[in-house]
């Protein structure tokens, strides 16, 4: 599908024409071809960590990169801004934002967290907030977000409170209850909650959180601002930012939305304080609003932010478009999760309705997963010796808790399996068999060798 460029013609200066896409759905072999750059022989059941990008979108990205290389000045003056605005406009429509001014493109959710938390940090430094005013987050918030809170909030005198959610989880109500309790505790300590950070889909362990309800509770309880960290959301679950009602909402586009690494959108509801959001890398655009500031943070490769139109072309070659892909991924991952749990005699970490394109599957207790270190060991072993790529989560059982058991003992480890359009049944069968082999051989984590 790639076009060869003739550098001697003026064609290079015009918008490069792409071949007309035939209006039929992608076949199995075409999908395979789109992801043929994935390493063969690897059961790649971890789309959630780093995402994936089809060949046709990569080709589009290369076209943009080539235009920059050919004449960078012309590109930066005449092409770049328009391309970013086009991407932002498509995103705005996808997420049901009111205005394109509310949509900024940044590198990733980690960057978005820094932007939001820097604003909170300034609140403390400049006396707007009092010492011990609080930022609330989930206990399983992404590690980068927790560190960002330390770097910008705790350092500036603020206090951070974690909400511990149950896992395995049986229903949304369990989450809502814990969340309410946590807020009430902070308020009863006489502290103000300046910001609540809520994951739309937690990373490890992965569960879909009822964000709309939790945002509602935040509003009821007088939480000043709400930031939804939806790193995994777009392309995974429906995203309607007005319905969810948060002040800030970020999602990566390279995880489940087929963009190349890396690009994310940060939605900021138009409010009084949204004008004091700044990109930490300051350029001549400082003060022109976050979307404009983010569209120029010095010389760099912006091509991953420019391919959103070609991603939409790609997803529309699937039956049902993005909705169809999400539905199919969800159904498949639940099916695969149940298959594995049954094969191993274990459990799922959440009911099917609380997962999207990822699900947590209990690992046999006989593997003796007793620490984070064990999960790293197991993961490396699976990669190096079985060609299976899957992240593992350690769930210790606290005193007084029953825990979940299989026929041999406590289940303390869960695999987070993902399903994306390139996955096939064999990937999960390979994983099933690898674990069965390890159990059969009497292997426990501590004795696993890695290359």
């Amino acid at each position, binding site marked *: 599908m790639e076009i060869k460029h003739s550098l001697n013609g003026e064609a290079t200066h015009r918008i490069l024409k792409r071949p007309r896409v035939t209006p039929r759905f992608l076949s199995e072999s075409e999908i395979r071809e789109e992801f043929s750059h994935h390493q063969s022989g690897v059961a790649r059941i971890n789309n959630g960590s780093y995402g994936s*990008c089809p060949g046709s979108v990569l080709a589009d990205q290369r076209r943009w990169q080539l235009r920059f290389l050919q*004449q960078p000045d012309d590109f*930066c003056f005449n092409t770049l801004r328009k391309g970013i605005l086009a991407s932002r406009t498509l995103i705005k429509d996808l997420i049901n934002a009111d205005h394109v001014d509310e949509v900024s493109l940044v590198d990733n959710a980690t960057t978005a967290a820094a932007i939001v938390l820097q604003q909170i940090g300034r609140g403390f430094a400049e006396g707007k907030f009092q010492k011990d005013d609080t930022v609330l987050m989930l206990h399983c918030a992404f590690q980068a977000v927790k560190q960002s809170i*330390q770097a910008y909030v705790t350092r500036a005198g603020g206090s951070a409170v974690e909400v511990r959610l149950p896992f395995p989880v049986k229903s949304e109500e369990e989450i809502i209850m814990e969340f309410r309790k946590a807020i009430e505790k902070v308020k009863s300590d006489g502290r103000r909650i300046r910001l609540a950070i809520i994951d739309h889909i937690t990373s490890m362990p992965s569960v879909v959180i009822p964000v709309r309800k939790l945002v509602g509770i935040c509003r009821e309880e007088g939480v000043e601002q709400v930031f939804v960290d939806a790193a995994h959301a777009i392309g995974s679950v429906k995203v309607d930012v007005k319905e969810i009602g948060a002040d800030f909402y970020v999602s990566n586009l390279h995880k489940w939305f087929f963009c190349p*690494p890396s690009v994310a959108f940060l939605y900021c509801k138009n409010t009084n304080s949204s004008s004091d959001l700044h990109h930490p890398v300051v*350029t001549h655009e400082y003060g022109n609003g976050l979307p404009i500031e983010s569209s120029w943070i*010095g010389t760099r490769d912006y091509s991953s932010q420019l391919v959103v139109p070609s991603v939409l072309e790609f997803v529309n070659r699937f039956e049902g478009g993005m909705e169809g892909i999400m539905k199919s991924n969800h159904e498949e991952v639940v099916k695969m999760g149940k298959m594995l749990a049954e094969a191993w005699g274990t459990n799922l970490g959440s009911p099917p309705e609380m997962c999207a394109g990822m699900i947590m599957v209990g690992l046999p207790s006989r593997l003796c997963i007793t620490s984070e270190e064990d999960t790293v060991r197991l993961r490396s072993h699976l*990669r190096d010796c079985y060609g299976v790529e899957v992240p593992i989560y350690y769930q210790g059982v606290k005193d007084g808790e029953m825990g979940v058991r299989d026929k041999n003992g406590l289940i303390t480890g869960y695999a987070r399996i993902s399903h994306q359009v390139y996955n096939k049944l064999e990937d999960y069968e390979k994983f099933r068999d690898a674990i069965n082999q390890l159990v059969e051989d009497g292997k426990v984590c501590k004795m696993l060798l890695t290359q």
Partner: protein
Amino acid sequence: MASTATINGTTTAADPISRIPKKSKLPSTPHQFITLAEIVSEFSHHHPSVARINNGSFGSCPASVLAAQKEIQLQWLSQPDDFYFNHLQTGFLRSRTIVKQLINADHVDEVSIVDNATTAAAIVLQQVAWGFAEGRFQKGDAAVMLHYAYGAVKKSMQAYVTRAGGHVIEVPLPFPVTCVDEIVQEFRRALQRGKMGGRRVRFAVIDHVTSMPSVVIPVKELVKICREEGVDQVFVDAAHGIGCVDVDVKEIGADFYTSNLHKWFFCPSSVAFLYCKRSMESCDLHHPVVSHAYGNGLALESAWIGTRDYSAQLVVPKALEFVNRFQDGIEGIKKRNHQAVVEMGEMLAMAWGTHLGCPPEMCCSMIMVGLPACLGISNNEDTLKLRTHLRDKFGVEVPIYYREPKNGEVGPVTGYARICYQVYNKPQDYYKFRDVINELVREGFTCESLPN
């Protein structure tokens, strides 16, 4: 050919950490250095009909380095988890080690890789802001920058220093400039202003090579003055440093030093290094994008700022290989670029009856050339309009600078073109520019006639 590191023409011994091999004997084949035809091929992706005399803005990258970058990108796409766990950090260490040797830093811990000098500035200025916020610096303490500091750095000073309570002072510099002493005197005066009323000067940011107008600043001397005057921290913004001027961070003596590698060191967009002298450990630099690596030192923090394409930062070894295909490596390239840009600058100034913006010894591979006064460049908008006109109508890419005339000047030169010379340039690029301007003068063209 083995990868080597050369500093000022001499080679360095292998660094045991990186196992970069010692320089091996050059093969005595007839084509041991890159040929002209090979250079043309390496830059064949440049638009063929554009006189690209603006390497300074966005730099350039040869095809062989781009190919190496693509390989890295494919490696990531093929199996990202494996790349992340097993290859990313060693790749970063390799790049940092090469930079450490190139710039004569003491220890690889002092070298972090970031996106660009703009990011480096944000990192350094953020910790200055913390200094004010946490009471190490008093509100009203001064921070000094050059009047010709890069626009992004000026805004960064506003965002981080002014906002946190610092008092920012600009050092006015003459332009055109006739000698180094003019700059030194202005700088001294600015520091005195900074110390007025018993204030401390906490921070100074000094360009190694200013952007617009472009002049090489005597950084070593200015850093020395800073030390004499008790300035707490000195940051040299050398966006145009490596591959353009001599970079020896120990000799220059600043606390922080940054340079882009995609401008003059043939790396793809974008990659820069930030050097932080070890004795400044206590000043607590952090990358503003915080990840799980927070607290492990800036170098490690910068090596993981979330999922993204780090390939431009991992091809530094390939850029060094490219550079060493030229006679005398980067030293040879710098010297020849400098000679060529001075020659071309003098040719243009003579053809137009104007002058250069600085003496040859105060420029590197960029030089400011006065444009004929009759073109009527009367403000900043005119420079943008003229630049666009040159690009769209004539296929010449060159940035223009507006110099406000002083009272009493007769028929002043108010516009200067910043021409650059890099290995892919040829005299025809500058003849084209010369002829275009001469044609515009003949036609009686003025900037006034250009649409807004």
